């Protein structure tokens, strides 16, 4: 461990260079919508530059990946049903900012005409409400399952990831009450806006959404960094490394794990509500299992627990998913080869996951601590099973 006071000249310049790099990227990120047209006209690489509206979806995908990173990367809880949080967020936006419940007319700070039936709350407020609602959903999912071993948690979250889409598809007549409008989904969902300035009515609406997305992403990164270094974040990492030791040091296992789950859920909910507003609807077809795996792939590619890694991994995969594979496919087909990579996108992600796990399990930009864990190995078999009080598990005594 290096001490804080002793900063050598070389280290200082490296820190400065890092900040310079971050600042440069930030400026580039902010002016992107203004320069995207000139980038697109560049020779050779111009075709591969993503449109601004694709960038919005990519950035929100990265935001969800950062949320998942808190659950998987920090706390080491494998969540295979993150899409459930996305769905919960999107439907919260659908319920609170559309004509879904046209039986009532409630308006609060909304940008739509006051005569419109249904509930219309301010979209900004809904972003927070969606986060809160999704957190509650996350805690409800977490409570029965978080005391179980990690692989059970994986399968239960997978189950919830399957139940939630089926629920929204089928919940169009619960005792005659239409909660989710079935397979059609809820649309249109209100736009973001400030006072009379409605994003969707502007000619550069994708730019406005883009900047909002950048703002949300920066908030998520900030929260990720601060949480990681907080007391809670250190408790998560302790649990990831060795549950037994963490419990012995006085970390309350259930509460700490539930917090990880809740934090991940909150971010997923906010992102889901934002995406629903951007796409003007919540459609059940978006909430499929593969999306959870896609987010997991972002985290694994970037490096579990590593914020900058997940950012890079998320940008790469998000780009490939939204535009990149299609662009590459059309280039390949122009070259006369009959191969469509978008059809096999999940096969490609599967290969990425396997190769990363085999050859670089710490990801593109490894988190230092996680790298040590992988190199030295950890003994994370709980030797005292929480569920069966008084039973010793198959933990190998020689590890202790």
């Amino acid at each position, binding site marked *: 461990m290096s001490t804080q006071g002793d900063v050598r000249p070389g280290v200082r310049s490296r820190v400065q260079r890092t900040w310079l790099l971050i600042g440069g990227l930030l400026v580039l990120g902010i002016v992107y919508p203004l320069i995207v047209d000139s980038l697109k006209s560049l020779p050779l690489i111009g075709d591969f530059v993503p449109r601004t509206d694709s960038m919005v979806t990519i950035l929100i995908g990265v935001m969800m990946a950062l949320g998942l990173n808190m659950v*998987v990367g920090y706390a*080491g809880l*494998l969540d*295979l049903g993150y899409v459930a949080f996305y769905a919960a967020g999107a439907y919260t936006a659908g319920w609170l900012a559309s004509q879904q419940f046209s039986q009532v007319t409630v308006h609060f700070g909304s940008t739509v005409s006051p005569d419109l039936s249904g509930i219309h709350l301010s979209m900004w407020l809904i972003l927070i409400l969606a986060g809160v609602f999704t957190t509650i959903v996350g805690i409800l999912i977490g409570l*029965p*399952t978080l005391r*179980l071993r*990690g*692989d*059970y948690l*994986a*399968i*239960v979250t*997978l*189950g*919830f990831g*399957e*139940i939630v889409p*089926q*629920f929204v*598809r*089928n919940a169009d007549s619960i005792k005659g009450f239409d909660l989710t409008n079935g397979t059609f989904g809820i649309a249109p969902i209100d736009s973001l806006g400030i006072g009379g300035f409605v994003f969707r009515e502007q000619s550069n609406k994708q730019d406005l959404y883009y900047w909002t997305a950048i703002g949300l992403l920066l908030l998520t990164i900030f929260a990720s960094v601060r949480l990681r270094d907080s007391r809670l974040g250190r408790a998560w990492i302790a649990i990831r490394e060795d549950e037994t030791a963490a419990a012995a040091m006085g970390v309350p296992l259930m509460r700490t794990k539930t917090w990880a789950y809740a934090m991940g859920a909150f971010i997923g909910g906010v992102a889901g509500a934002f995406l629903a507003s951007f796409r003007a609807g919540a459609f059940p077809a978006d909430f499929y*299992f593969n999306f959870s*795996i896609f987010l*997991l792939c972002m985290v*694994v590619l970037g490096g*579990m627990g590593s914020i900058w890694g997940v950012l890079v991994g998320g940008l790469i995969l998000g780009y490939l998913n939204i535009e990149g594979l299609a662009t590459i496919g059309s280039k390949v087909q122009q070259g006369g080869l009959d191969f469509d990579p978008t*059809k*096999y996108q*999940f*096969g*490609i*992600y*599967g*290969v*990425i*996951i*396997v190769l990363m*796990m*085999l050859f670089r*399990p710490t990801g593109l930009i490894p988190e230092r601590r996680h790298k040590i*864990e*992988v190199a030295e*190995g*950890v003994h*994370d*078999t709980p030797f005292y099973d929480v*569920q*069966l*009080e*008084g*039973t010793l598990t*198959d933990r*190998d005594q*020689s590890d202790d």
Partner: protein
Amino acid sequence: MTRLRSLSLIDAIGLVLLAVLALYLAKEFVGDPSRFINVSIIGLTNGAIYGLVALGYTLVYGILQLINFAHGDVFALSGLVASTIIVSVFGLDESTGVLVILVGLAATLAITIPAFALLNGSIERVAYKPLRHAPRLAPLITAVGVSFVIQNVSLAIYGVDFESVPNFIPRTDAIRIGDIVIPWNKLAVFAIVIPVLLILTWFVRSTRQGKAMRAVSQDTEASAMMGIDVNRTISVTFFLAGALAAVAGLVYLLQFNMRYDTGFELGLIAFTAAVLGGIGNLTGAVLGAFIIGLVQALNEGLDGTPGSDWTRSLVFGILIAILVFRPQGILGEQTPEGA
């Protein structure tokens, strides 16, 4: 855990739920016994297929404590390959004689069983073996990746269309008692599954290799010290799971159409069955599979149930309920010693 202990609140809630379920089933049975039994027969047939797949999950989990997500996709690919062999290579159809069909099906199994045993073994060798000492999350995530790779191999070969075989096992009645009917094609499922289960039981109970498997699942290091080749035993387990998946693929194909993603959902159902019975416990996996098959069939066949739209939610609801009320499964306490 002590045998007799005072009932906790959670146990009490679980028992009340069970009692309500039993009452409902009793009411349905009294209302229309023959329909109830016919629906149950469908459920047991499906359960037999789930059981073969569930055994694959539970065998691997028993030894490596790994949920082999790829298992369902191995099953689906094996069924698709079997359909090619039956339709394109052997050219069997309804007009083929009974004897030829039986020989043809046996020959199909003789090809797919070794092929998919080998495939499953290779997956273990390539994807899981290097991660045996990595953190637990690593092989689990790899398994998810392998599952997607295999699913896309099926997609690349067979496209998105459903594959099927002709109905060369007639759906006419084999056994008929009053209104209770067992058709030939359902009987055929049991005619294949029951011998396979008997052979498996014999293998695990009585052979040296089977004993080695049980020893490794109890304590890997101790069995290594006793001279058991752990790597070989793990490979054999994967071979066995792959062979079971190949049998399940053919049996499923005789009943339903298949396509590249059939294995995903069926895999989840089978895994639920394995957890329900007590993961790592072979008898439990089969028992769990029959229960899940029954629940599914009763849900889709009786009145007053949520219906087929909700089957998936129901199966996962059961999974979550087990994990809350009885995480060790129905027969879980025998693990991992039980055969």
